[in-house]
């Protein structure tokens, strides 16, 4: 029972981080970045490749920096050049980036999964009040909490965070006040890359391997989270992601042998939420035109 609750919390936290990464970029530029999954994948590749030889801490540092750099590269190389384009063009461009990176990973790393134990101790168990629980779920919950609180602090308490909030609700007006569009968008991409690296760390320790499509599944589900949470609201994205993740985990636990129906039930619930609150759980007012 305790393990079920911890699993739900850790899965929720994990999807919350993924959804927040997507929500950050959507907030400032109304771009649904499908290539977020490929950020998670590069984080996992970097971990699997570097950790066995350089150790865990160095590997994590390389993965975080590398993923953030790739996120910034996407913005500078592709999205920055499409500033005056409409949302549909941006959406298709992000699909393009996503597929391009998947094929690129295939060329560089091969189509078959690469395996490595990144943090095998996370799969061990510890004893809490007579029940044994996996270390991984505890570590994931702590990691998610630290990152969510850290992001909240950054968004709520720093000047750059204030500018990101302003740009998310009305980019034109924010620019009129002097908010530098490129700087704010660049920052959103960098932070979404950092969050993607954290997601990569958790997932790769669970799976023990990485392939070119590593990040696709979690990105689609996290995207569902940002939608039911309320597109354009950062709290909504994190909350929606959390709900999706914990619901998947709980459904898996309760359905037992019928867990093939987990996603059926998940999407039935998603449809109900969207019928009741079409704008998402945390409806946002910021639907004005972007840059």
């Amino acid at each position: 029972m305790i393990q079920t609750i911890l699993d739900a919390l850790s899965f929720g936290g994990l999807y919350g981080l993924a959804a927040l990464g997507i929500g950050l970029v959507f907030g400032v530029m109304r771009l649904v970045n499908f290539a977020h999954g490929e950020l998670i994948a590069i984080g996992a590749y970097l971990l699997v490749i570097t950790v066995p030889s350089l150790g865990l801490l160095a590997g994590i540092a390389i993965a975080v920096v590398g993923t953030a750099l790739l996120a910034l590269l996407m913005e500078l190389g592709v999205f920055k050049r499409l500033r005056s384009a409409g949302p549909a063009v941006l959406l298709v461009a992000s699909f393009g980036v996503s597929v391009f990176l998947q094929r690129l990973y295939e060329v560089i790393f091969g189509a078959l999964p690469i395996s490595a134990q990144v943090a095998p101790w996370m799969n061990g168990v510890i004893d809490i009040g007579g029940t044994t629980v996996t270390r991984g779920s505890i570590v994931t919950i702590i990691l998610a909490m630290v990152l969510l609180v850290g992001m909240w602090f950054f968004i709520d308490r720093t000047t750059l965070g204030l500018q990101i909030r302003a740009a998310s609700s009305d980019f034109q007006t924010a620019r009129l006040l002097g908010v530098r569009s490129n700087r704010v968008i660049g920052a959103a991409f960098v932070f979404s890359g950092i969050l993607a690296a954290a997601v990569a760390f958790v997932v790769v320790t669970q799976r023990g391997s990485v392939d070119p499509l590593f990040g696709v599944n979690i990105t689609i589900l996290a995207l569902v989270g940002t939608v039911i949470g309320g597109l354009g609201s950062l709290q909504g994205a994190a909350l929606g992601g959390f709900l999706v993740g914990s619901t998947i985990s709980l459904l898996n636990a309760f359905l037992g042998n019928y867990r093939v129906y987990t996603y059926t039930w998940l999407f039935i619930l998603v449809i109900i939420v969207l019928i009741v609150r079409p704008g998402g759980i945390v409806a946002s007012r910021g639907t004005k035109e972007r840059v």
Partner: protein
Amino acid sequence: MTLLKATDLKAGYGKVDVLFNGHITVEPGELVGIVGPNGAGKSTFLGAMAGSVRATSGAIELDGQSIVGRKPEDIVRLGLSLVPEGRAIFSDLSVDENLRLGLTGRRLKDGASAALKDVTDLFPVLTTHRDHQAGMLSGGQQQQLAIARALVSEPKVLLLDEPSLGLAPSVIQDVFGVLGRIQESGTAIVVVEQRAHLVMSIAARTLVMREGHVRATLTPDVAWDEEKLAEAYFGTGEDES
């Protein structure tokens, strides 16, 4: 020396121009009005000067420096602030956060806290509601917040787009009453208004716009001359430009 000067300005959205012939000169500390019917290109004119609407041709000089084609976030740093129509405050953010965002566009590094104090002296109601969500303020208070937020960057020119929109008459008097005090501090103001009398009585000059052109320049003495006003607004039948 002329502070702000636009000549032969064309601007619009996408491939469609809305402003065909924007002209204005503003001296330091001056208040210039722009009036005209709906769709005359008034907001587009202001937007083109602030950089939020793309200018397709023409020249804009601020303090002798060309600003045409520059980004809005750069133009505000050169000393031109626009308060857009409909106030455009960040309703989810607090009053204080809205004001602090205004500091982003400051040219000067020092004096930020003094600038914040100056505007809250000008609009004391903002101090009372400092920590409230800006969306909870009344319409008049939101307009005051939008003007205050533009002023904390200490602009040389303040552009106001229909500050009276949606406000009760008594509240309009409050908002317009402050404009004189802003002028006294040396800031030039350009006000776009639907209510022609209101702006003409306080402006040194008032431009009348129609169909994307500046058609006439009126002085305060004709503010209540309905005939002259109607003529400038609707034309005399012949095109006088």
